[in-house]
């Protein structure tokens, strides 16, 4: 196992406001790191900084190479980001959209070679998307669309996959489908996955480790059991919850202490 992504003392500021401060994290090849934290904690900013899209201080290393020494294209060959609300060009077919993932391997004026098409078709096949290949992407259901977004990232053939709230818009069945897919892919392809997560019960089930982010800082990193405690959630989410533990993992239950008096 080698380290796919490492950041040390990572900071991102907009003007005088620090969005991230002193974040140090490591992800191994084939490992899944979940990032949890309240709204505005800096989860998306962290992913953007790892992808080289946010001007950051500190160190980010992709495959042991500092991100500053990589060209844009080299960077895009190493790390793929699936944003939370991607821009989906209306009318573009699934195949054309997934082909965009080959961009880091193509020069400024170049068009795709047959190998790029082969790789893209492989990806579509492995994600069960060949049937949908000629459908316009804006006619797909939420679950199908999420698979297409993952497909574009896989066509990038990067070792590091960053997912920003990959299941937010999905119902519980499709959430499981997408997360199982990501889990399978990271074992099969040795991908290092970093995903921000909204649903804490699910966050405890899939990633190997969780990082709790609050006000731009890493509060703690560990297994779901260690990170998702009633104390942590009270302190950083301002939430009153009970944590139930059983054989399948943990369940986070919001509790109501105060009821409005009638």
């Amino acid at each position, binding site marked *: 196992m080698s380290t796919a992504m490492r950041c040390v003392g990572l900071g991102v500021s907009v003007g005088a406001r620090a969005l991230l401060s002193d974040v140090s994290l490591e992800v191994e090849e084939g490992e899944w790191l979940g990032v949890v934290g309240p709204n505005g904690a800096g989860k998306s900013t962290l992913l953007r900084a790892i992808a*080289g899209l946010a001007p950051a201080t500190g160190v980010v290393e992709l495959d042991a190479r500092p991100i500053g020494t990589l*060209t*844009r294209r080299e960077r895009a060959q190493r790390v793929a980001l699936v944003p939370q609300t991607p821009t*989906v060009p209306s009318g*573009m*077919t699934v195949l*054309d959209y997934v082909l965009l993932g080959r961009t880091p391997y*193509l020069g*400024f004026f170049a068009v795709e070679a047959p190998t790029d098409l082969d790789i893209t078709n492989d990806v579509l096949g492995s994600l069960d998307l060949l049937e949908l*290949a000629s459908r316009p992407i804006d006619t797909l259901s939420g679950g199908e669309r999420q698979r297409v977004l993952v497909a574009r990232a896989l066509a990038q053939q990067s070792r590091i996959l960053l997912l920003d709230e990959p299941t937010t818009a999905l119902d519980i069945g499709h959430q499981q489908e997408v997360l199982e897919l990501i889990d399978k892919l990271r074992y099969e392809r040795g991908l290092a996955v970093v995903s921000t997560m909204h649903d804490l019960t699910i966050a405890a089930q899939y990633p190997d480790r969780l990082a709790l982010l609050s006000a731009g800082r890493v509060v703690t990193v560990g297994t779901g059991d260690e990170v998702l405690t009633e104390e942590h959630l009270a302190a950083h989410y301002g939430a009153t919850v009970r944590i139930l533990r059983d054989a399948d993992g943990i369940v986070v239950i919001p509790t109501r202490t105060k009821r409005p008096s009638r």
Partner: protein
Amino acid sequence: MIATLTRPHSRLPARWLVIGVGLVVLASLAGLAVGPVSLPIGRVFLEVIDHIPFVRVHSGLSPRQADIVWQLRLPRVVMGLLVGAMLSVAGGAYQGAFRNPLADPYLLGVAAGAGLGATVVIVAGGTTRSGIVAPLPLAAFAGALVAVVLTYALGASGERRRSATSLVLAGVAVASFLTAVQTWVQQRKSDTIREVFTWILGRLTTASWHDVLILLPYVVVTSAILIACRRVLDVLSVGDDEASSLGVNVNQVRLVVVVAASLGTAAAVSVSGLIAFVGIIVPHTVRLLAGRSYRSILPLSLLFGAAFLAFTDLLARIVISPAELPIGVVTAFFGAPFFLIVLRSSRTSP
């Protein structure tokens, strides 16, 4: 692995390519056949064929008639094709670079900037011809670049990220300002007003082979650059951020496309005057017909734009024959209502 691979849909559809070439040929033949002096159509075509190297046919036209075909009609047709192709490809490319279907040489102030540059040269009496490096195209290009840089700078300031709407609004402001300056320059010298006005309304009337030779290299080089950018313009359709995460230097793409499109627009404007709406109508029509990938839009805009302007010029010649309408009037007359229809339908569709 499945044996039959699915093919990308962004490819240039051969059917539309053939139709585009057909329209260009048709428009050229019609443009050659029609004119105030009626000439037998068959002989007109023979006369043109006669000028192909190593081909000798006898057209049976008198030397004066042959001159009408070769020195008046054909350069005018070719000029219409070149200007139409250039304005359409530039319009489509601006739309891709700014991710805005309303981006157009006119809305961005490019045409107004080119107009100002050209007016300054005309007023200064610099229209005396001096080969490929005639001052008019260069001044128009300088004006066009100043305009697009102003538009880009103004549209970008005030918010952290460049939005398509603020860009177009800035373009409208820049265009108004530059038009005001242009009017001021033009009114200061009364003896060139007529020349400036003729130029502004658009004129293919006086097109000569000399004008064609001035324009041709600009059209070839800038169209080639813009069409070469077709895939990367498709990548921009996912937005600056995602395009950047795919390894594309978004600002570099924009710079290359905007400089090439502005140079081409300025060159076209400097020989033909301000011909409105072509850069927005043609790419829109192509988009509706053949899909939204720039792999189709740019090459097809070249063909359809060429045919469109050649047909429009034909109309300008015959509507109030023997007098002629300025071609800019015809494109605006058909372009504005068409544009409104496109605008409305693109709003109501999901």
